């Protein structure tokens, strides 16, 4: 079975803090990690590989050269090959352009199953996976909380807010993984030695995909959506302390606050 996992290197946004004085994000010292949903996808792929002898897992990432370390981590976990697709011309790509670029690379590869993380913790769009599937003309099953292989079909537990569909899909297909799909294994010491000494991270640029990628679909120019402005949320103001209220007044005050914050 040939499995390809699309992974992204992201800043660990749970560690990002707001500087209260300047109201800007403190990005220094925030570690870069493999996006959690993608890492679960890598683990799921490695488990399928263990189940089906002769299988391979290739991990592909679109990003800057620094993303090399994320790919080494995937190799150290047990992936067989890694491709970093990188080019200055790709800068500023929105999800249409990103998915077009990644799909152009995938079109040059053989695969039975493509796994992408559902959502990246920096962009937070959850769009690239389904868009890749459309560019490749293959079925998609998103929000996978469990996957299994039965004969030559993939069975996916597809999560909805209030229920779960058990879906059977023929390959080739694309699945987007939730972080609960699989608990990622640690790298092993020997795996890291191999990642840097006997395995390689192939670097692809626009030159390598120009026969499958229309250059009108890449970079800022190829992006239908653009960021008009970005800003940090308002810093938390002083809290409000209410005393001498009747119980009903207290309840009303709480209800108002919950409504204000769209909790109810």
């Amino acid at each position, binding site marked *: 079975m040939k499995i390809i996992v699309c992974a992204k290197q992201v800043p660990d946004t749970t560690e990002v803090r707001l500087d209260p004085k300047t109201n800007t994000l403190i990005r220094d010292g925030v570690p870069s990690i493999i996006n959690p949903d993608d890492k679960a996808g890598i683990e799921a792929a490695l488990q399928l590989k263990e189940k089906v002898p002769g299988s391979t897992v290739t991990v592909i990432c679109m990003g800057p050269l620094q993303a090399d370390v994320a790919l080494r981590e995937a190799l150290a976990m047990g992936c067989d090959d890694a491709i970093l697709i990188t080019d200055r011309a790709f800068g500023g790509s929105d999800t249409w352009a990103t998915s077009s670029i990644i799909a152009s690379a995938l079109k040059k590869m053989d695969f039975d199953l493509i796994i992408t993380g559902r959502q990246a913790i920096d962009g*937070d769009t959850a769009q690239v996976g389904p868009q890749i599937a459309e560019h490749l003309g293959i079925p998609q099953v998103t929000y996978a909380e469990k996957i299994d292989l039965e004969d030559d079909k993939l069975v996916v537990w597809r999560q909805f807010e209030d229920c779960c569909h058990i879906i059977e*899909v023929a390959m080739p297909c694309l699945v987007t993984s939730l972080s609960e799909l699989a608990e990622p294994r640690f790298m092993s010491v020997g795996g890291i030695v191999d990642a840097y000494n006997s395995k390689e991270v192939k670097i692809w640029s626009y030159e390598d995909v120009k026969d499958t990628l229309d250059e009108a679909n890449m970079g800022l120019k190829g992006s239908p959506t653009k960021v008009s402005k970005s800003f940090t949320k308002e810093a938390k103001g002083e809290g409000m302390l209410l005393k001498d209220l009747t119980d009903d007044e207290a309840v009303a005050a709480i209800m108002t606050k919950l409504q204000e*914050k769209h909790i109810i």
Partner: protein
Amino acid sequence: MSRDIYVIVELRDGILSKVGLELVGKARELADNLGQDVVAILLGLGIKGKARILIEHGADKVIVVDDPMLSEYVTEPFTKAVCTILTEKQPEIVLFGATSIGRDLAPRVSARIHTGLTADCTKLEIDDDSKLLLMTRPAFGGNIMATIICQDFRPQMATVRPGVMVALEKDTSRKGEIEELDIKFNESDMNVKIREVIKSTKKAVDITEAKYIVSGGRGVGEPGKFNMLKDLAGELGAEVAASRVCVDSGWIDKECQVGQTGKTVRPDLYMACGISGAIQHVAGMEGSELIIAINKNEAAPIFSIADLGIVGDINKIIPKLTEALKKSKTLS
């Protein structure tokens, strides 16, 4: 020329989704600004009767596709139906709920018809000068907000976070058009097979993953009183947590302990009930988005980090709050 605001309305178990009505309400506002119409798209099986409700909530027109291929949500048949309509009608704007359906369907549609899509919007406005849709949404794990525009491609598409926009009051006097559309489906459009639909069951508690938390401290007084907090949590869809004192007294499991020697949580809502707010506890929850604290003692340190602090008796306030929440659900 593209025109009109389209809203893809979901149904779950035959009931119109709340987010669908919210988006029709928002679309009404955008349409009035642009001098255009609101068109709702309703996809499913046996759903024709629901179209009227959408008109009563602000739609000028409803396009209904009623077909067995659409009885359960599957990506390809829904994508085909929506793309057929969008290609024919050429809308200006299309809105989807940012649900597990909307976030599966909208990107596929946007890729098929080659247009821009913005995810999980919390604000939508029309720019005064350019008349473009300004789509504002959180990014970077919610740490920043970004306003996105789609200048050169149509329709401008967005998935919108549920619970943010406001549905209009039902107006039975509103008039509108209902169009029934047939989509030519092929058998091959059903390219996956749904083996089984499993209704949700409750999973094991992990307070670090909870969106909302109701937490109790020494002020709860006795183990039985935690039921009061559980009831409140039930109404809010929250998890129950506690300070160390309650865990040490055996009133609640250590899995639920928040604090320096327990877990660190950053939920969207942290209700601190009868918790004094000692530093060892605060260290585990001060990153919460909204902190509401109730405590008898005006000088309790928890009030210095609460967004809303109420000096009062949790034994009286909590049950009344639970009642009020129950009531508010039946009204909507």
